[in-house]
C-alpha cells in the first residue's frame, strides 16, 4: 500500500482555498456547479477517510441524505431558516446516525462492510419514498436560508451561499487533515494493513474504525446540509445506491493522498456529467461510463498520482 504523507497538507489546502477564491469569477452556472460539487466532495472525502482503514462504504449517501433532510425538515416543519443553526443540526443528526450504526458496522470488513452500509442506505431510501408527507420520490423544497438573522437579497444570495460553502469546505478539509494526522487517524492504515498485529500492539481496531465512521458521517452530513442550502431542494435520490456509487468512484480515483483530491475530483465528475448531459441527453450515462472505464484503465492509482508522481521526480 502507498504510504501517505500529510506534511504538505496545509499547502494543498491553501491551494484549494486560493482556487476557490479565484472561482468566484467563474461564469455563474459553473460556479453554482462547483458549489454543489463541493458539498458532494465532502461526502467523497468521508468515503476516503474510511478507505484509509481499508473499508469502502457503498452507502455513504445515507448521511448525505440525513444531513439534507435535517436542514429541509427543520426549515419547513419548524420554520427555522438560520444557517448557523441548521448546518450544525445536519452534522449532529449525521453524527448520531453514524455513532449508532458505527457500533454495528465497525465489526464488518471488506465487501460485507460495503454491502451492509448499502443495505442501511437503501432502507432509508425505501422509507423516504413511502413518506407521502415528505413528498415521496419528489422530495420537497427548502426555503432560502438566512445568515446570522440576515436574509440576503435575491441578487447576492448565490454569492453568500458560495462564500459560506467555501469557508466550511476549507475548514472541513483542515479538520479532516488534523484528524488524519492524529493517532486515531494514523492507526487507520494499520487496520488496513494487519488488524491482528494491531491488536497485539494493544490498540482496538474496532475503535479506530468507529471513529473513522463517525468522522465520515459528520463530513457527509455537512455536505448534505450544504447541498440542501445551495439547491433549495432535497429528495430521496440522495441516499440511492447510484449516488453513493458516484462518491465511491471519486474517492477511489482521488486516492488516499490528500484531503483536497476528493473535493476537486467530485467537481470533475460533475463537470463531465454536465457536459455529457449537454452534448448527448440520451447517452450521457454512456459517456460517463466510458470516462470511468478509461480513468480506471489508464490511471490505476487515481488522479492524485499525477501530482504526487511529479512531486517525487
Amino acid at each position, binding site marked *: 500500500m502507498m504510504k501517505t504523507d500529510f506534511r504538505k497538507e496545509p499547502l494543498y489546502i491553501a491551494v484549494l482555498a486560493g482556487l476557490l477564491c479565484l472561482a468566484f469569477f467563474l461564469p455563474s452556472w459553473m460556479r453554482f456547479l462547483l458549489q454543489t460539487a463541493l458539498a458532494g466532495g465532502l461526502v467523497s472525502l468521508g468515503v476516503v477517510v474510511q478507505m484509509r482503514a481499508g473499508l*469502502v462504504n*457503498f452507502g455513504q449517501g445515507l448521511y448525505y441524505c440525513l444531513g439534507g433532510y435535517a436542514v429541509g425538515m427543520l426549515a419547513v416543519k419548524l420554520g427555522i431558516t438560520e444557517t448557523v443553526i441548521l448546518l450544525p443540526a445536519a452534522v449532529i443528526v449525521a453524527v448520531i446516525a453514524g455513532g449508532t450504526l458505527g457500533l*454495528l458496522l465497525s*465489526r*464488518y470488513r*471488506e*465487501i*460485507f462492510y*460495503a*454491502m*451492509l452500509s*448499502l*443495505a*442501511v442506505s*437503501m*432502507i432509508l*431510501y*425505501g*422509507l423516504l*419514498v*413511502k413518506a407521502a408527507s415528505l413528498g415521496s420520490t419528489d422530495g420537497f423544497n427548502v426555503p432560502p436560508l438566512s445568515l446570522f438573522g440576515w436574509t440576503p437579497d435575491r441578487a447576492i444570495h448565490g454569492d453568500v451561499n458560495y462564500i459560506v460553502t467555501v469557508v466550511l469546505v476549507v475548514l472541513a478539509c483542515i479538520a479532516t487533515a488534523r484528524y488524519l494526522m492524529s493517532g486515531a487517524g494514523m492507526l487507520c492504515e494499520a487496520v488496513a494493513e*494487519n488488524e*491482528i*498485529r494491531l491488536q497485539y500492539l494493544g490498540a482496538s481496531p474496532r475503535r479506530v474504525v468507529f471513529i473513522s465512521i463517525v468522522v465520515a458521517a459528520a463530513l457527509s452530513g455537512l455536505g448534505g446540509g450544504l447541498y440542501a442550502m445551495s439547491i433549495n431542494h432535497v429528495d430521496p435520490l440522495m441516499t440511492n*445506491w*447510484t449516488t453513493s*456509487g458516484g462518491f*465511491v*468512484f471519486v474517492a*477511489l480515483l482521488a486516492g488516499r493522498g490528500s484531503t483536497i483530491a476528493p473535493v476537486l475530483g467530485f467537481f470533475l465528475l460533475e463537470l463531465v456529467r454536465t457536459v455529457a448531459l449537454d452534448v448527448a441527453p*440520451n*447517452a*450521457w*450515462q*454512456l459517456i*460517463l*461510463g*466510458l470516462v*470511468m*472505464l478509461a480513468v*480506471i*484503465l489508464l490511471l*490505476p492509482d487515481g488522479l492524485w498520482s499525477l501530482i504526487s508522481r511529479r512531486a517525487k521526480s
Partner: protein
Amino acid sequence: MLKFVAIMLDGLNYAAWLFLVAVGLTLIYGVMRILNIAHGAFYAIGAYACASALGIYYTLGLPGALAFVAMGVVALVVGVVLGLVMERGVLRFLYGKDEVLMVLVTYALFLILEDGVKLIWGVESYFVWQPYAHFGYLEIGGLPYQVYDLAMVVLAIVLGVGLWLWLVKSRMGRMTTAVVADREISAAMGINVTRIFATTFAIGTAFAVVGGVVTAPKIAVTPGIGVEVIILAFAVVVIGGLGSIPGAALGALMAGYARALCVHLAPEYELFAIYAVMAIVLAIRPHGLFARTSGRKI
C-alpha cells in the same frame, strides 16, 4: 385462509424470480471474485431481446406454444454472446485488480449498457403478454393462480439443481470448484483458468438473461428495470453468503417470503422488506448464512 394461500404462492413465485436473477451473480462472484453490477443490465437486455423476438414471432403468426422455445433460444444465444463479449472484451484485462475496483468497472459497464439499451430499443415500453396468458389459470385452495408463475418456480428449481449438478458432477464443474479453492494451484495442475473464467461468466450472464426473458411477458419492458434488479439480487446473494448457490436459494426464499408477507399484510413496508431481512441476517451472521470460513492471517 385465502390470504395465507396467496402469501405462500406469491412468496414462492417471487423467490423463484429472485433466485433466477441472483444465482448468476453469486456464481460469478464465487469463481471470479467480481461483484458484477452490470448483471442488472444483462437482465434488462434479456427482457428487451425477448420482447423484440416475440414481437417478430407473433407478427409472423407462428403457433403460440412454440413461443416458449423461441424464448429459450433467445435467452441462450443472447446470454452466451453477451457474457463472452464482456469477459473477453473488457474484464480479462482487469483480472487481479482490487475487488472494489472491479465493482466500479462493472458499474461503468452498467452505465454504458443502460444507455446502449436506450439507443437500440428507444425509451418507449414494450408489451408481450401472450406467453403469460397462454396457460390460463389454475385454482389452488380457492385462489385462481397464473400457471405461468408456477412454471417459473419449476424453471428456477430445474435450472438451480442443474447448475449445482454441473458443478458437483461434471468434469468442467469440478475444475471450476478447484479454481474457486485456489486459482494458482489449479493453474499449475493444468487447468485452463482463462477458459473456466470465460465459461463461468457466460453461464452467469445467461442466468441474468433468462431472468429477464421470463419476466418480460409479465411486465412493461421499460428503461430502468435493470436498476431495481441489481440491488435486490445483491441483497439475496449477501443474505445467503456470497458465492454460495444453496445460499442464493435460501436467500431468495427468505427475501421472497418477506416481501410477500409485507405486500399482503403491511404494503407500506414492501419496498425495504428485503433490505431489512438482509440487515438482520448480516447483524447475526456477518458473512451471510452459507459463508465460507477463512483463516486468520497474522
